[in-house]
C-alpha cells in the first residue's frame, strides 16, 4: 500500500498542475481575436469541424489576419470539449464547459457549437446572456427556429451556417422522382433515426412520395441507439421494397444497418442520408456491396470533391494535405470552414468586435464559400436550395459506381448542375 502513496499524490499534484497550466482569463482578449469552439470532440462532427476551422484560421493568419480598426489581428482558437457525444453525458456539464470557455477565454465569437440538439437548445440562453455571436454548424433541430422565433431580439446572436434537415430531404425526394421516372420503381420503405430533425427529414420525403404516387410500405422510427435492424429489413424484403429511404447520422446504428442490409441480401436500393455509405472508406468498412447505394451529402464539400465546384476540390485537397485523410462523415466541415471566413468578413465590415455591431454585419452576410452562396434568412439560418450554387448553399446526392478498372467511386448524380453521371440501377433489380 505504502508504495502507492507517491503515485496517489502524484496524480493529485499532476492534475493541479494542469489546472494551473490553463492560461489565465484576463489577458486572453488583448491581441488576437479569439474563436471559441465548445463542441463534442468525441464525434466526427466535432473532430473534423475543428480541423476545418484550424485550416481556415491558418490560411487567414498566413494572409495577414483580420483587418479591424486599421490593425491586422490574427485569429486564435480556443477549443473546449463538451463531451456531448451520447445522451448519457450531462447537459449541465456541457453548459459548464460552455460557460467556462466564455468567461475564461473571453471569445469574440463561437463557431461549430453544440452537437446534441438539447445542448444547443439549453445553451441558447447562455450565448444570449453573454452576447457572443455564434455560428453553429452541427446541431439541426426544428426546435431551434421555434425558440428563436419566441424572442428574436434576445437570440439574435445565434446563427446557423449549415442547412436544416429539410433541404437535403428535398434532394432525396427529387432523386426518388428520378428513380421513378427512369426505372419505374414504386415501393418505398422509410426508416429513420428517432430524433426530431431526422423525423422531419423523413416526414418530408414521405409527403413528397405520397404526392408523386410512390407506394409506401412502412414508416418506421428506430431509437438512435438501436442495434438490430433485422425487423425492418425483413419487412422491407417481404414487402418487396424497391427503395429503402433511410435517415441516420449515428455511425453505430447506421453501420449495423448497412452490414445487416448486406448480409440479409435485401434486394432494394438504399437511398438517403447514411454516413457509412457516404464515407470515402465505405468500400473498406462495409465492403464492395456499397455499390449502387445513394447518399446525400450536405452541405457540399463535406467529403466529396466536385468537379463543378472547384472550391470543394481545393478545400478537400488542402484538408487532405494537412491531415492526411479526407474528412470522415457525418461531418459538416465545409460549413465550419466557411463560418470562419464569414466571421472574418463580418468583422471587417463591422470594423469592430462589438457583438451587436458584429451581429448586424453577420445578418448582411453574402459570401460565396465552399458550400455555396451563404446568406442568412430572418431566422439566422443559412439559405440552402437546389437551384444554383451562386444563389444559395447547396448539397449533393451521389451514388457509388464502378469506375474504370472496377474501382468503386462516388459519382454525383443530383442536382443536374453538379451531376457527373446518371443513376444506375443494380443488375439484381432489373426486371
Amino acid at each position, binding site marked *: 500500500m505504502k508504495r502507492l502513496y507517491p503515485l496517489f499524490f502524484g496524480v493529485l499534484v499532476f492534475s493541479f498542475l494542469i489546472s494551473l497550466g490553463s492560461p489565465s482569463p484576463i489577458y486572453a482578449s488583448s491581441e488576437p481575436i479569439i474563436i471559441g469552439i465548445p463542441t463534442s470532440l468525441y464525434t466526427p462532427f466535432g473532430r473534423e469541424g475543428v480541423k476545418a476551422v484550424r485550416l481556415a484560421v491558418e490560411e487567414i493568419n498566413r494572409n495577414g489576419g483580420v483587418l479591424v480598426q486599421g490593425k491586422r489581428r490574427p485569429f486564435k482558437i480556443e477549443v473546449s470539449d463538451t463531451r456531448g457525444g451520447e445522451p*448519457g453525458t450531462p*447537459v449541465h456539464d456541457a453548459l459548464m464547459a460552455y460557460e467556462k470557455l466564455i468567461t475564461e477565454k473571453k471569445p469574440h465569437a463561437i463557431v461549430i457549437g453544440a452537437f446534441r440538439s438539447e445542448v444547443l437548445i439549453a445553451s441558447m440562453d447562455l450565448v444570449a446572456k453573454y452576447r457572443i455571436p455564434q455560428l453553429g454548424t452541427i446541431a439541426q433541430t426544428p426546435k431551434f427556429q421555434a425558440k428563436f422565433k419566441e424572442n428574436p431580439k434576445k437570440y439574435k446572436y445565434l446563427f446557423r451556417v449549415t442547412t436544416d434537415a429539410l433541404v437535403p430531404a428535398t434532394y432525396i425526394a427529387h432523386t426518388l422522382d428520378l428513380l421513378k421516372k427512369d426505372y419505374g420503381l414504386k415501393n418505398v420503405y422509410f426508416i429513420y433515426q428517432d430524433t426530431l430533425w431526422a423525423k422531419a427529414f423523413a416526414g418530408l420525403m414521405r409527403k413528397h412520395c405520397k404526392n408523386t404516387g410512390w407506394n409506401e410500405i412502412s414508416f418506421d422510427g428506430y431509437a*438512435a441507439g438501436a442495434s438490430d435492424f433485422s425487423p425492418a429489413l425483413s419487412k422491407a424484403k417481404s414487402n418487396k421494397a424497391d427503395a429503402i429511404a433511410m435517415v441516420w447520422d449515428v455511425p453505430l446504428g447506421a453501420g449495423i444497418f448497412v452490414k445487416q442490409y448486406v448480409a440479409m441480401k435485401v434486394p432494394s436500393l438504399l437511398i438517403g442520408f447514411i454516413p457509412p455509405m457516404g464515407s470515402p472508406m465505405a468500400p473498406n468498412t462495409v465492403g464492395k456491396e456499397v455499390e449502387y447505394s445513394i447518399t446525400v451529402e450536405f452541405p457540399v464539400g463535406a467529403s466529396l470533391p466536385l468537379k463543378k465546384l472547384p472550391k470543394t476540390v481545393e478545400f478537400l485537397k488542402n484538408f487532405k494535405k494537412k491531415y492526411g485523410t479526407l474528412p470522415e462523415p457525418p461531418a459538416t466541415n465545409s460549413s465550419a470552414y466557411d463560418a470562419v471566413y464569414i466571421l472574418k468578413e463580418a468583422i471587417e465590415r463591422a470594423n469592430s468586435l462589438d457583438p451587436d455591431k458584429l451581429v448586424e454585419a453577420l445578418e448582411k452576410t453574402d459570401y460565396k464559400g465552399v458550400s455555396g452562396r451563404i446568406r442568412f434568412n430572418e431566422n439566422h439560418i443559412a439559405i440552402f436550395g437546389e437551384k444554383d450554387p451562386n444563389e444559395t448553399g447547396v448539397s449533393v446526392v451521389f451514388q457509388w459506381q464502378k469506375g474504370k478498372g472496377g474501382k468503386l467511386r462516388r459519382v454525383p448524380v443530383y442536382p443536374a448542375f453538379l451531376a457527373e453521371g446518371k443513376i444506375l440501377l443494380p443488375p439484381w433489380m432489373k426486371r
Partner: protein
Amino acid sequence: MKREIKKTRKKRLDRGIKARSDTIYVIASLRDIFYLIMPRFLPVLILILIPLFLGSYHKKVLIHACIYGLLALSWDFLASCGLFSLGQALFFGFGAYVSGTLNHYFHIPPSFTIPIATLGGGALCALLLAPVVRLRGVYFAMITLILPILLIKMIDTTGIFGGTHGISSLSAFPHEYIDTYLAIVSFLFILFLFRRVLNSDYGLVLMAIKDDDRAVMSGGINIYWRKIQAIFIAGSLGCFAGALITHHYQFLGISTFALDYSILPIAAVALGGQGTFAGAALGSMILVPLSESLRALGGLRIAIYCLILILSIISLPEGIFHFLSRKYHQFETIEEV
C-alpha cells in the same frame, strides 16, 4: 559480540487539549472553545461568505460542489447501513423528473415542486428498491447501477417527458442568490444533521446493521424496515439535489440520469473517507473544483476521477478527513524500541 540494532516506531498521542475537551464537559479556556469550534465554524463561515465574491461561473461551480456534496452525503448514509449504491443518478434523476414535469405540465412553482419531488421521489426510490434490501450488497449495487441507464434509454427511445430534447425553460428561482444559498445551506444543514444522527441511537442501529445483521435481528429489530427507511432518507436527499439543479438550469433532460452523478459522489466519499459524513463533504469540495479546473483535459476528466478514486481506495483507505483529523487531534513522536 552482538551488534545493537536501533529500532524506532511512530507513536501517536492525543493532544492534551483534545483529551481535555472531549472527556471533561467543561470548557476550560477560550483556547479550548476555539479548538472545538473552529473546525466546524470556519468551513461554514467560508461557504456562507464565498458566493458574495464569486462570478456567475464560479458560483455555478460552487453550486455543483454542493449538489455533488449532497449526493455524496446520501451515498454515505446508505453505505453506513451496508447498502452500497452505484446509482445516485437514480435518485438525482427521479427528483429532477418529478419536479420538472410537475412544473412544466401543471405549472406548479418551484417552492412546491421541490418539496414534493424530495418526498415523493424519496418514496418512489424506497418503493422501487424495497425488494432488494433482502439481498446482498452486490445485488443492490447492480440494480442501482442498471436502473438509471435503462431509464435513460427508455426516455430516449419512447420520447416521454420531452424525450431526448428534454424540457427547457422551466420556471427559475426568483433571485440568483436564492438557489446558491439554498444549495449551500441545505448542504451544511444535512451535513450536520447526519453527523448528529450518526451519534444518536438510530444511527447506532444503522451502523450495527452494517457490522452484523444477525446480532441486530436477535436484538428484535426489523433490519429490512430500517434499511428501507435509510433508502428513503438517502433517496429524498438525492431527489432534492436533482430538483434543485433542474430549476437552477431551468432545463430537464435524460442526462440527469447520467453516470457522472453516480461516479463523482462515490469518488468524493472515497477521497474524503467513508463513514464520517464530513469526509464525503470534504471530498466533494475538493473534487468538484478540481474537476472544473481539469476541463483542459476534455473527456479524460472522468477517467482521472476514476484513477483518483481507485488510488485513494487502495492507498488511502481511511480517506483524507481521517488523516486531517488525526493530524489535528494528535501529535506523533518517534520513539526507540
